[in-house]
C-alpha cells in the first residue's frame, strides 16, 4: 500500500518537474497511439458504416472476422508485423523495424477492427429508415452517410475511445516491433515493463500512474466534448 502511494507521488513529481525523459516518453506514447487511432478511424468508421448499410452474401462471415479482430492478441499482431517489417521481410526495404512508425502500424492493426466493430454497432442501432428519410429529403449518398455518422456520434465516440484505450495500454506489439529503444521507441507501457524488470518498482508505478492519467485525460476530453455537444443540441 505504502509503495502505491509513493508511486503516485513520484508520478506527480515527475510530471510536475517535467522530467525530460518522462515527458519525451509520454509525448511519444500520445503521438504513436493517437496516430494509430486516427488511422483506425479512417479505416474502421467507413468499414463499419458500409457493413451496417449493405446486405450481401458473405456479410456474416466478414462480421465474424471483424468481431474476432476486436480481440486480437497484441503479441500476435506484433509478431506478424515484425515478420513483415524485418530486414528480410516483404516490407524490409523501408527499414521501419524498431521505429515509431512500426508501432503505429501494429497499433493500427489492433485498433481498426475495434473501431470498425463498434462503429457497425453504432450505425446499425439507428432506425434503418432514417437513411431512406435523408435520401428522400434530397441528400446525396455522401451527405446521407455524413448525416448518419452525426446521428450515431455518441456510439462512434465510444468506438474511438475504445480503440485509443486499447492501443495506448498494449505492450506486446510495441515491445516487439518498437524494441523499447530509449529516446526513440520507448513508450509508457514498454518503459513500465522495463522498470519492473529492473526491480525499480517505484518508477514503474509512477509510469503506470502517468499512463493512467494520460489515458484518462484523453478519454475525459472526448467525453466532455460529447456532452457539451449533446447540450448544444438540447
Amino acid at each position, binding site marked *: 500500500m505504502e509503495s502505491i502511494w509513493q508511486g503516485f507521488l513520484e508520478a506527480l513529481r515527475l510530471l510536475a518537474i517535467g522530467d525530460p525523459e518522462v515527458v519525451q516518453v509520454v509525448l511519444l506514447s500520445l503521438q504513436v497511439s493517437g496516430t494509430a487511432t486516427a488511422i483506425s478511424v479512417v479505416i474502421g468508421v467507413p468499414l463499419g458504416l458500409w457493413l451496417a448499410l449493405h446486405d450481401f452474401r458473405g456479410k456474416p462471415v466478414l462480421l465474424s472476422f471483424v468481431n474476432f479482430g476486436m480481440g486480437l492478441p497484441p503479441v500476435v499482431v506484433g509478431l506478424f508485423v515484425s515478420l513483415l517489417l524485418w530486414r528480410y521481410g516483404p516490407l524490409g526495404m523501408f527499414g521501419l523495424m524498431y521505429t515509431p512508425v512500426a508501432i503505429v502500424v501494429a497499433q493500427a492493426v489492433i485498433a481498426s477492427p475495434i473501431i470498425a466493430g463498434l462503429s457497425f454497432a453504432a450505425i446499425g442501432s439507428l*432506425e434503418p*429508415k*432514417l437513411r*431512406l*428519410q*435523408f*435520401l*428522400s*429529403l*434530397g*441528400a*446525396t449518398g455522401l*451527405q446521407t452517410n455524413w*448525416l448518419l455518422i*452525426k*446521428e450515431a456520434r455518441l456510439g462512434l465516440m465510444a468506438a474511438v475511445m475504445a480503440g485509443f484505450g486499447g492501443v495506448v495500454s498494449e505492450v506486446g506489439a510495441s515491445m516487439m516491433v518498437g524494441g523499447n529503444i530509449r529516446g526513440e521507441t520507448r513508450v509508457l507501457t514498454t518503459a513500465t515493463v522495463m522498470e519492473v524488470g529492473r526491480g525499480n518498482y517505484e518508477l514503474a508505478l509512477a509510469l503506470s500512474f502517468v499512463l493512467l492519467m494520460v489515458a484518462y485525460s484523453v478519454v475525459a476530453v472526448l467525453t466532455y466534448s460529447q456532452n457539451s455537444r449533446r447540450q448544444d*443540441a*438540447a
Partner: protein
Amino acid sequence: MKAAVIDMAGVKVYREEKLVLDVPALQIASGELISVIGPNGAGKSTLLQTINLLLPYREGRLRLFGENGQENLLALRRRCAMVFQEPLFLNGTVFANVALPLRLRNLPGAVITERIMTVLDMFHCSHLVNRQALRLSGGEAKRVCLARAVVCEPELLLLDEPFAALDPATRKNLLVELRQAAEARAMTVVFVSHNLNDVLQFTERVIVMEKGTIVQEGHPGKVIRRPASRAIAELAGMDNILPCKLEKTVDGNQILLGQGRSTINYPFEMPDGAQHCCLPGDIFEIDDPDQLKDADQVRWTGMVRQVIPGIGVFQVVVEAEGLILNLRLAREQAAHLVIGQVLHFSFNPAESHLI
C-alpha cells in the same frame, strides 16, 4: 389527360427474396390527388418508397415526370417529398429538421428561415420551432413531418398515413388546407390512409392494394359500395358482409344466406366463387306491411336489437332471417324504434354486391 407524373409498368419489388410489390400498370396525372388504401402489409408503404426511388426494383419501368427512374435519382428525388409512416428526425430542433431539405439544396439562410416560418405556420406548429424534434408528441411530430415535406415545394407529394396520430379537429383542418395547398401549387399528391373519411374528402381516385398488388381502382364512392374483396369490404366499413352460397336454377339465380334459411332472387350475372354478399346499410327501406310493393324488392321481417344514434343517420341492428343486419336509417324513421319491436323492411337486390 395531362402528362403523367408517375408512370409505372410491370414494376416488381422484392424484399428479402419475397415479392412485396407487383404493379402491372399505374399512371398518375399531373395535379391529381390520389389515395391508396389496403390492409396492413399490403405494400402501400413499399409503393410510396418505390415511387420515391428509394427501393431498387428488379423488373419493369418507372418514369417520374416523364424521366427514367433509373437515372438521375437525386434530381428526381429532389422534385418529390415524402412523409414516412413513422416520424424520422435527426437529433436537433424542429427548425434544424425542417431546414434540412433546404440546406441540402444549398438555399441561402434568409430564404430558409422565411420558408420555415411560413410552413410551420401553415401546419400550426410555429410554437414548436425551438423544441427538440425527438421529444415531440405523436401528433406534433406528424405535423412537423408534413411541414418538412412541403417546405421544399415538391411537385409530387407522397404521404404515408400522415394524419394517423392527429386529433379529429386538426385532422379535418389539415386535410382542407393540404388540399388547398395542393390545388394552388398544382401539386400531385399520393395519399396512403386507413381512414375512408379522409379518402372521400381528399381525392377523386383511390387505389386499393392487397398482397402487394393493385386489386381495385376507381372513385372512392364506388369502392365503398362495390369493394373487390372481403378485405376491402371490411376496410371500407361495409355494414353487412354475409357469408352466402350461390345457386343457379331454372327459375333464375339465387343467393342463399343464413345457412340457407333465407333466399334472395338475383336476376343478374353472378360472379364465380363469390362467398360473401355485401349489403350496404343504407339500401334498406322500412315498409308498411299492408302496402303493396314492387315485386322485385326483397322483403324481410325482423326484430330490432339495438338503436345507435348518430347525426342524420341512425344505425339500427336487426335480427332477421337468422341474420344480424346493420341498417342505416334516417333519424325520423329510427328515433322512435324500440328494442324488441318487429320491423318490416325491404331492399332492391341489385344493390347487393357479391364477392
